[in-house]
């Protein structure tokens, strides 16, 4: 279920569940600042869900660098890529 082209869809599904948003309103450009409920606790929850769903571990640098939906998608695909190379 973690096909490459699935990542944006799955990610926006997670975000829309977590914050009660319509998935169609989310784009890769949507920023963390524009979603008031996306606080540090929910950020942690999001990371934990992503890690379980995609079977990856994100580094602290990656976690801290996520400022938008696009950043999150990039972090996931980078992590999947480096897993594949190993």
């Amino acid at each position, binding site marked *: *279920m973690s096909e490459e082209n699935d990542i944006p*869809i*799955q990610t926006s*599904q*997670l*975000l829309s*569940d*977590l*914050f*009660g948003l319509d998935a169609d309103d989310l784009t890769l450009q949507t920023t963390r600042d524009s979603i008031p409920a996306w606080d540090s*606790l*929910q950020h*942690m*929850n*999001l990371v*934990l*869900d992503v*890690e*379980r*769903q995609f079977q990856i*571990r994100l580094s*602290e640098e990656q976690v801290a660098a996520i400022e938008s939906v696009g950043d999150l998608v990039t972090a996931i695909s980078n992590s999947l890529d480096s897993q594949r190379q190993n």
Partner: protein
Amino acid sequence: MNGGTLISAASFASIADGASRMSDLPLREQLLALRNEILAKLNAQDFSGAQFLLGRLWRTSPGAATAAWIQRSVAPVQSDYCLRTTRIAVLRSFTVEPISQLLQAAALTERIKLEVYICPFNAYAQEILNSKSALLDFRPDLTFLCILCQSIAPDLCHQFGSLSPEQRDQTVQRVIADFQTLIRSFRERISGQLVIHTLESSDSPAMGIADASPEHGQNASIFKINQALQHESQRDPSVSLLGVDGLIRLVGANQWHDTLRWETAALPFQSEAMLAICQQWLRFVVAACGPLRKVLVCDLDNTLWNGIVGEDGADGIAMGRTSAGLPHRRLQQVILDLYHRGILLAVCSKNNWDDAWNVIQGHPDMLLRPEYFSSVRINWEPKDANLRSIAEELNIGLDSLVFLDDNPAEQSLIRQSLKEVRVLDAGTQAADYADLVLNEVGFERLRVTEEDRQRGQMYSAQRQRTEASRAAGNLESWLESLETVVCSVPVTTVTLNRIAQLTQKTNQFNLTNRRYSVSDLQRMHASENWRILGFQVSDRFGDNGIVGVVILHREENELELDTFLMSCRVIGRGIEQTMLANVGEFARLSGVISIKGDFVKTPRNSLCDDFLERHGFHFDGSRWKLDFPAFHALKTPKWNRMQQDFVLEPKVDGTVK
């Protein structure tokens, strides 16, 4: 897969209910369909239907996002949907907030609304010891005390190598004393259950492989602390332990620790670990505050065994050590454990009685034999009617029943017709059934008492008695078929405890309702004017224990019935008549001229309204009396056999012979 783990989505032919056509769809679309069904059921106020599907959603895709979705979806109808509110407090040394969010959603799948109070970081001691704290004001039903070893005893975790043996012992003793102080103060100030996480042992002890040798023992030191916690829990039933090492084993240490996030965010666990803790917490919440389930009702064909006995024959079904049989064997083992935990077992199967019963009685691979079942329905009646009559027979509410059946049509019938019954979400894979039963949180108990352990046996004996009564046709031949033996037992410390308990608890068949403590009874027993008789009843189905008590008081040449009582467990079998005949025999041997007694009427003892009169006593204006020689005529009913463990003889020197 192991108990306590979550069931994978693969075990469901289709996740969306009643829509097998969707099984070909990708998981994500099945989940969407499932969510839509949940919303529709919530909208239609079909809360038990919604609960069933919410449970399936949670097992299929647990996590923070699903948790948020569940909470949001239930919120508009929460007060109608939830059947109870439970208040839990968490005293912690690490970040528990993500677990708390998961737990609130998991609790909703049990229709429990959770109120959660989380104490500030590492403030557990202040919260407990301070006589004015937010914790006290919160008044939790259940409190989790979760402290990591690295928080309460960092030197045991990280500097173990630098400690001298004396320093290690000092640390161990200090931590034990700290815990004891916390437990005592908690108990003084707060009611409700306290659940303490045990300290986790180290994966990489300082001395490496030498850790197992006695002079090093980092893990031995941690174990000593856990042992002391066990001791506290043994002493006080309101203190329970959550065995963290067992949980780590279940999830795998590789998926448990997160040392980096512990440093950066005080989050010591990975996401799988948090889910496992959440599920374990839910078990404690339900075991402590309900709703408890008391009976497991099982189907037979393709549930307790592989195959259909009516078609494949007893030789064609499997429940042994073969690939077809093993899943069912494991299920039977799990169910057997429930039986010993005090959960009652029942059978509900569409079959010819003989076909199915012969398997239960005689198939060599069957683990669950007739004596484990409290109620059996093997017939062709609709299963909802059978479940109703099982609940009636066991005198237990439908909401205490859990139903396990491989057939989706039967599951659906029960879900629609008996909404209170918990229907297990059994799919097509028998290999999942054992886990399904293990994951039923309503079967958890904080503690298993001796009474729990005996419960199944007593109910099953009752079932066999009823069956015998049906087979016997009329009452008298039934009573005879029981082969009842009434035994008068000698007074000892053990029997006096039980006798005191009976005087305190018996209300229905009790002539005088006098309540006695053990020390009251000991004083009577020491006096030559008093005589205590305990009656134990057994029959061919088992032993009922001591169920009757007579206390006699000799006043000159009269014998007074101070106490005459019998447990309602054996009512309707002439036991009271046998006991009275025994009193008559005693009166004859004592040489008294009359037996006298009172009947003290209460709102609950109408069962013995005419007992004395029926047995020839007459009322002399103040008391009931039976004079010499009328008491010679008191007889044991012919279907009871009286047995004396000691010589029934009046005390001359104040002792029992």
